[in-house]
């Protein structure tokens, strides 16, 4: 068991190196000038001075080595565009907010999505099934920027129940954005749980339980639900990664100072170090999330452990 965990852990290092390399190479391909943000030309001398200041005039392999060194000493470099902050600052200030947003969205998804899936499976092909699946899918299918705009309009502007945008302050700010972000994963969970429950409901031990005369609700909860949740657990890790990186639209619309918004802005303004820093960070999160799930799965299901060892 520990061998399994150790081996998986060791694998993350080359994985990370690869990610860093890929991101580095790709960022170098994008043309653009981080030092020119307005249409006014930057005087040549100023441009050169800035490039020297940020080591951009060194050959690419030196820059790469410097960068890798930085990553492993947790120093992701200065921001090329926002001069008063380093990438570490930016991540420290903004990443937790996105994580919060993502986890809250996740909570919505679990709290609503799983019961929806369960109910739909128990009433397969009935009005309940279609209705619930339809409802949950609508949340997923309509583009998030429209959903967010409508939510703000009806709940905040017309209803006056919640503030229109912002994040810090009272809990009220956090409701709408996390709900809007959670709609997609909600539908995903609902469908996942429904599918897996349908499968489990076919199993012999379920029929046995019913034949034995156990009450149906007990059967559902004790036998069916637990086993149906395995796929949901598996799905959580990449979903978490998706939520954290997919927060951009919600962050822009709800004025949330999160890392998603910063990331896209950094790409637009060609702030190379910020882009690389955030990409590396997200990769680390995803890789470790996958690692945790793999380990959990190895614990939960011995078959996979053997197959992968």
């Amino acid at each position, binding site marked *: 068991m520990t061998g399994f965990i150790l081996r998986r852990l060791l694998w993350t290092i080359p994985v990370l190196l690869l990610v860093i390399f890929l991101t580095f190479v790709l960022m170098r391909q994008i*043309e*653009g*000038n981080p*030092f020119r*943000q*307005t*249409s*006014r*030309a*930057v*005087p*040549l*001398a*100023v441009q*050169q*001075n800035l490039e*020297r*200041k940020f080591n951009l005039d060194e050959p690419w392999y030196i820059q790469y080595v410097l960068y890798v060194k930085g990553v492993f000493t947790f120093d992701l470099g*200065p921001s090329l565009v*926002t*001069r*008063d*902050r380093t990438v570490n*600052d*930016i991540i420290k*200030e*903004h990443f*937790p907010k996105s*994580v*919060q947003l993502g*986890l*809250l969205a996740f909570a919505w998804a*679990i709290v609503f999505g799983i019961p929806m899936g369960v109910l739909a499976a128990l009433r397969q092909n009935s009005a309940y099934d279609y209705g619930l699946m339809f409802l949950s899918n609508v949340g997923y299918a309509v583009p998030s920027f429209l959903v967010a*705009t409508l939510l*703000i*309009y009806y709940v905040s*502007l017309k209803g*006056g129940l919640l*503030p*229109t*945008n*912002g*994040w*810090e*302050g009272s*809990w009220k700010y956090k409701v709408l954005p996390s709900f809007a972000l959670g709609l997609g994963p909600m539908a995903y969970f609902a469908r996942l749980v429904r599918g897996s429950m349908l499968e489990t409901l076919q199993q012999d031990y379920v029929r046995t339980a019913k034949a034995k005369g156990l009450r149906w609700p007990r059967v559902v909860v004790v036998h069916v639900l*637990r086993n149906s*949740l*395995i796929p949901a*657990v598996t799905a959580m890790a990449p979903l978490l990664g998706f939520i954290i990186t997919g927060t951009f639209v919600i962050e*822009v*619309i709800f*004025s949330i*100072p999160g890392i998603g*918004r910063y990331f896209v802005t950094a790409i*637009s*303004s*060609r702030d190379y170090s910020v882009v690389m820093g955030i990409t590396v960070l997200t990769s680390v999160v995803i890789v470790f999330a996958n690692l945790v799930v793999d380990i*959990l799965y190895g614990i939960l*299901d011995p078959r996979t452990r053997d197959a992968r060892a």
Partner: protein
Amino acid sequence: MLSRNRWQQAVLLSLVAVLFVVGCGGGDDEGSGGGAGTAAAEQTLKWGLGSEFNLDPGLATDTTSAKLVLNLFDPLVKLADDLEAVPSMAESWDVTGAKVVYHLRSGSKWSNGDPVTAKDYEYAWKRAVSPELASDYSYQLYGIKGAVEYNECEKNCAKLRDAVGVKATDDQTLEVTLTSPQPWFIQQSAHSVFLPVHEATIEKFGDRWTRAQSIVTNGPFKVEGAQPSASITLIKNSEWRDAANVKLERVEGKIIVDGTTAVQSFEAGEVDVLDEQLPAAETPRLKDTPEYELYPGLGTSYYGFNVKDNITDVNQRRAMSLAVDRQSIIDNITQANEKPANAFTPDGMPGEEDIVGEGSPFTPAAGDLDMAKEYMAKAKNPKTKITIYSNEGAPNKEVAQALQSMWKQIGIDSTIKILEWQQFLEFLGPPPPKAVDIYRLGWVGDFVDDINFLELWTCDSGNNNTGFCDKEYDALVAKAKGTPETAARYAIYKQLEAKLTGPDGALPFIPLWYITYPNLERETIKETFKINLLDQVDLTKVEVKG
């Protein structure tokens, strides 16, 4: 070893626990206060800011930053309503030829108690033009002797630094030596890049001196707290030299980047003023509300040609300019009541009536298709398949499509390429690559003299993306820069404008309209909140009426 089911329970439970902990935790807060205020003072302004900001005057390139720093620090001069320079930190000044001497007030203090002296201004100006800071706006100081050389220095720059023509001869006197007499210099020094900074703070904190805990200011307001990328709170600086006349006690600025959300926020009563983000598409709905306020801006929006390689025939350029129905685009797309442009010099520029006069014959507000076709016929080898380059963003796409449609009527087929901003900048150059026939751009004035606009079109100007190069034009610009007397200088400006947009002008661009700033302002502050032509706001004049 727990059973499988128990593990699942454990995982789920711990996840829920994590959620609770994270969800109930607060966020980071810099400085004191921030975020939700206590009992809101009567004189509180809730301001919806359009973008992130940088509180370093040397680096404050965007308008949000400029607006903030101009109220946090004390400039030497300010601009009155008529755009004349009025004393601020400088009580008076003398101009003799290429030498300017500012006489500063005494008794003013920084927020940490240190006295404000002329040395602070000398330090700030030299820093703004230093190669280490490499500020975007360093070119604003190029009129000072030795500034360009210092800015371009690569190493051992201390000597060049000392040679820059700015010196604090004593605590209250700042001597500035310019490269030539520049009658606009005093007004130009009202720009944010000329603001003072506190040397000791910068030495101590380096790049991070603008954080709420460390920043030291000397203006009518100071920073109470700030949350990165989210909000900033300003409070009145009761130590300020003129604090008795400042009514506003508190400013709560919230960053709202999305235009649609900003309007929703305003309508929900969460902010009292929006000055950056009104989406063009919302203006028709908002125009008739009492909160709508429109300010003219000192800027011209235009479409520039690639004159050297592509649209080489001036008759084609004239035809294309004549074919544009500016009023229609303004009425239906941009919808911010801009004035159709009839020259490059914008409305509101001092001397504009003399400089522009009747305006260009090639810029009829509603377009003139017949004349356009005439000129098109005169053109030898006109280029009838062209590519329009524009950056993305709400009205630009539609404007490009409207122009495409208008040029179709004089026989020109255009393809529109909408580029992301940085890609667009790559395409601009200068010089623009062969692929570009015509591109969208604009110029917003840095200071209130037409030279700022007209000198754009010299041969080696970094902001001339057309390839237009006329030695006579350059000579006239140099001559204008050496003419301190206003009327004579305006006469030269008139000639320059004629060379661009006049009846015999080269028309290297199509002037479209003069920009405006549409705002939403709540009635309680509408009277006193004003944006001037250079998009600056003076918060000391703002008062929340009952």
